[in-house]
């Protein structure tokens, strides 16, 4: 492929950024009679456009590595166009067009991976189309209520109409976001998608479900409280949504811990993170929405960083299972730091901005007095430490468990540049937690007519329930890190190093070559023996959906027997139907 085309591709990947800079007017043109498309940029959409503008070029860069796959590039461009249309939509028709273009172009991109199997591709497209068609049904109900397709608060909605709107839109967006029990398409597709595209799926496309959920709140002025009143200090309907989110995160976290494959682990972790965001949206207060947006920002940065690092490892070693990796810290140091920074952000530990985001959500739960939810969420986010640790330990530390891992080299520069940029951004937002609030989140809250969070200075995150200073925190952690690292390096020379993994033996057992010596090996198996956790891990919705598919095929077989190949039967049926309808008419009307 020529340089011109590659440059063009990069330019297109920068288009969300350009759009963000240059957009200043509204566009509108007719589609068919009575349907006008209109494009406008709301603050809420602007926030998600910022996320897209950050991510798109960072993923486009490694995609350009030779030998490049031209259809993938074309599809990626279509996908970007669809997502920008979706975000700029001022009416539901353009929103739906963008949504659908995103759906089918991402499906075709998924097919570019040689690992995608039939079940994965079918579940991906069917779940996403079900989401799209639910959305379309909701749009049509909305249209019949308001008389046009503009996205705006619907006043004068009767209760059943509002209920059907909330159910249709809510289900559509929850499928896209991937909450339980509608998540089943996510682990398979994130796992089997082309490695770089997984980053985009998790980082950007899943955020569109989040965008939709927040948009749904804006459709009804008193969205959550309007239905069933308040529960404790928050909206009662939101309480339900919040539990959906929290249960999603708990289950997905334990599933993530038990995974043996890097990409599958990240996929479940992604489900868990979107679960937190769903919880925050359920709370619905200004603090909670700030937390949701902050989480969305951090999750986008972290997941893109982690997926690109993992893509680099897979590219260099060809392995994606933990048991086949190890000891890459010396061979792939930059990727190591990418994953390290990534998991600190993912786990929501200070000093990185994941902490600020989770802090806001926790505070909003306290504010709503939903303490049981708070406890459940803390359980999930603590358990998340285990898989985070596994993610950095298993590939990078310990012994190299495959020849590829022993000979791997650092990922090529198109993979490293995005990682370095993302690490820089994470550190930046960690140093200045107020920056994201001030520049990105408060304008959205103001646009939604909610109280802004505000911050005294960029370094500080402050809420009514207290806050912290990012610079100080970073200095403390940085000093501690430097001290520990320095001590380790000083003492390192005195440590004895094992010559080979097989030197190790204990209690009379000498491991053979087949014994998995990996620290994380069998971690999931042991997890299943814990009473409650084991029960959770054994449950699954796959059986239900496979059963549904089986029923459909059985119905197809049954109805297919009608279409026999004998003309006499066709004529017989026609005559019988004719005679029967005549007889029925005769009985009813007295022929």
């Amino acid at each position, binding site marked *: 492929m020529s340089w011109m085309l590659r440059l063009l591709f990069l330019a297109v990947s920068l288009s969300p950024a350009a759009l963000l800079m240059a957009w200043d007017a509204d566009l509108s043109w007719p589609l068919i009679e009575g349907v006008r498309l209109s494009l406008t940029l709301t603050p809420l959409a602007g926030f998600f456009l910022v996320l897209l503008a950050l991510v798109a070029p960072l993923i486009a860069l490694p995609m350009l590595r030779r030998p490049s796959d031209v259809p993938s590039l074309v599809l990626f461009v279509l996908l970007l166009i669809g997502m920008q249309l979706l975000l700029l939509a001022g009416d539901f028709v353009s929103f739906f067009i963008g949504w659908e273009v995103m759906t089918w172009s991402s499906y075709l991109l998924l097919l570019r991976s040689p690992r995608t199997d039939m079940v994965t591709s079918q579940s991906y497209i*069917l779940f996403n189309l079900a989401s799209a068609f639910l959305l379309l049904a909701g749009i049509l109900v909305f249209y019949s209520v308001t008389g046009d397709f503009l996205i705006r608060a619907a006043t004068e909605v009767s209760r059943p109409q509002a209920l059907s709107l909330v159910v249709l839109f809510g289900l559509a967006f929850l499928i896209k976001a991937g909450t339980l029990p509608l998540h089943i398409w996510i682990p398979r597709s994130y796992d089997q998608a082309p490695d770089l595209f997984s980053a985009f799926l998790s980082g950007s496309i899943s955020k569109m479900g989040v965008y939709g959920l927040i948009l749904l709140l804006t459709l009804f002025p008193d969205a959550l409280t309007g239905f069933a009143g308040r529960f404790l200090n928050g909206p009662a309907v939101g309480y339900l949504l919040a539990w959906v989110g929290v249960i999603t995160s708990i289950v997905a976290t334990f599933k993530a811990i038990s995974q043996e494959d890097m990409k599958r682990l990240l996929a479940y972790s992604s489900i868990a993170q979107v679960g937190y965001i769903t919880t925050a949206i359920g709370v619905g207060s200004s603090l909670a929405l700030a937390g949701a947006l902050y989480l969305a920002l951090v999750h986008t940065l972290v997941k893109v960083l982690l997926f690109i690092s993992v893509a680099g490892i897979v590219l260099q070693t060809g392995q994606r299972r933990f048991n086949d990796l190890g000891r890459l810290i010396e061979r792939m140091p930059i990727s190591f730091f990418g994953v390290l920074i990534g998991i600190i952000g993912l786990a929501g530990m200070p000093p990185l901005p994941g902490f600020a985001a989770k802090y806001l959500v926790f505070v909003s739960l306290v504010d709503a007095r939903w303490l049981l939810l708070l406890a459940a969420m803390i359980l999930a986010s603590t358990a998340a430490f285990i898989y985070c640790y596994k993610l950095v330990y298993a590939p990078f530390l310990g012994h190299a468990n495959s020849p590829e891992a022993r000979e791997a080299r650092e990922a090529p520069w198109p993979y490293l540049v995005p990682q370095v940029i993302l690490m820089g951004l994470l550190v930046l937002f960690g140093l200045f937690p107020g920056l994201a609030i001030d520049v990105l989140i408060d304008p959205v809250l103001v646009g939604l007519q909610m109280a802004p969070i505000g911050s005294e200075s960029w370094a500080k995150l402050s809420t009514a329930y207290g806050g912290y200073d990012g610079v100080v925190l970073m200095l403390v952690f940085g000093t501690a890190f430097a001290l520990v690292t320095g001590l380790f390096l000083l003492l390192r020379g005195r440590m004895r190093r094992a010559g080979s993994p097989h030197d190790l033996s204990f209690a009379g057992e000498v491991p053979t070559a087949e014994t998995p010596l990996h620290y994380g090996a069998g971690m999931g198996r042991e997890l299943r023996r814990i009473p409650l956790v084991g029960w959770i891990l054994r449950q699954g919705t796959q059986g239900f959906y496979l059963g549904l598919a089986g029923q459909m095929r059985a119905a197809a077989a049954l109805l297919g027997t009608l279409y026999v190949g004998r003309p006499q039967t066709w004529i017989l049926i026609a005559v019988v*139907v004719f005679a029967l309808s005549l007889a029925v008419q005769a009985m009813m*009307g007295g022929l």
Partner: protein
Amino acid sequence: MTLPLTPVWFVALPLLLAFASPLWVRLRLLMPLLVGTPAALLLLAFVLLPEVRTAPLLETIVIAPPLGIHLQLDSASWILVALISFAGLLTNAFIWLADGEPYLRDRRAFVFLLLLIAGCNGMVLTGDLFNLYVFLEIAGVSAYALSALRRDASALEAGLKYLIIGSVAAVFFLFSVVLVYLQTGQLNLAAIAVGFGEIPGPMQILIGLLMLVGLGIKAELFPFNFWVPDIYQGSHPAVAGLYSGLLVKVFLFVLFHLVFLLLADPKVVGIWLMGLGAATMLIAEVVALRQEDLRRMLAYSSLGQIGLITLALGFGVEATTAGGLFHMVNHTLVKLLLFLTAAVLLRSFVSAQLADLAGAGRARPLAAALFVLGALAVMGLPPLSGFASKLWILKGFAEAGVFWPVALILLAALIEAGYYFRWIKVLYDPSVQLQAVHPVGRLAYAPMAVAAGLIILLGVAPFLVDALFSEGAQALLDRGATLTAVLGAGS
């Protein structure tokens, strides 16, 4: 002598050229004329368009009063006539350019293809019930013959089956024509429409049922469409594309034309037709899930779309009718594209079975890409043309506050996605290295590219044509205006 540009040419030109075929063989003009005739008709349609949009064109050729041939070209039938010419043009161009099966390129095929066009045009244009029957038989007989052109068992079987079921349909229809004539003494549609209300109720029902069974078999509605997959599978895919893209649309149009013209209050019949449409759509889409042959799968998918169009037209509101007419056009474009793709794949790999086409995407990338485009359009995914028409239909239902068809249409689209995406996945199966057996010339892709281009164009800019379909819907629904136009203001 100047030749006046009148609607008569839509029937006369293909008839004349078909019967003079020995001459064209001698002059080696067979293939150019095969493509040129529909092209000329399409041109004629566009020349007549401004006139049609101001007032319907009426043409009466009196044989001996009251016997005569009435032709009526209004905004609704213009859409169909243009569609017939365009579909004929694309298919014939494919037959010429693909340089494939010799049995499609000889004199007999030439005659039948042109007769099919003439018959379809006649059915759409005629304002006379008996002529309608005659044209129905012309189109029918040429369709049976086209099925059986290939000299092998499956094609002959398809042709014979088609002949049997088609004749039964024609007999049902003929009975209804006879009864109408006995009751009203008229054969002119407008005159019958005036007198139809005075026929006793039970007789109305009998006539209606006879017509429904006759046209229902031809238009492939649910309890009468069991013959469809066999015929589509046995015929050459390009010919099957004509059945699905052109012939069925014409019969559907005739059915609804009669319903809206003859009945002063089509509401009740409309609801029955909507029920039939919904059943056709859902059952066909479900059955298609298990099809392993590309042609059979496309046949069921075609039935599903026919059901959707019936559902939309049966509702009888301007928005759904306009959307339904638009969907007819879109579905014709899409099904032509898909069936021509099937023809290319069938020739390349000798088989149209799912298992034999695994990995065809790399051996025939262009054909597979066009298949994907067609599949996306048939499911109504934006920004392709199927979306605009489906949105129009759904919007019409939503405006009226009727949501059960919306739910069924969306459910059917989801089931449809279940099998189309299965085929797409198999076409791009990475684990199989498939080699094409027979070459396919580049030129064969030209008609498909035209159809694909139109699908994209109409999807991105449907506002170019939406006025045509609104006017068409008004013309189809406005019974009074038609009657006044034909019988004069006094009637």
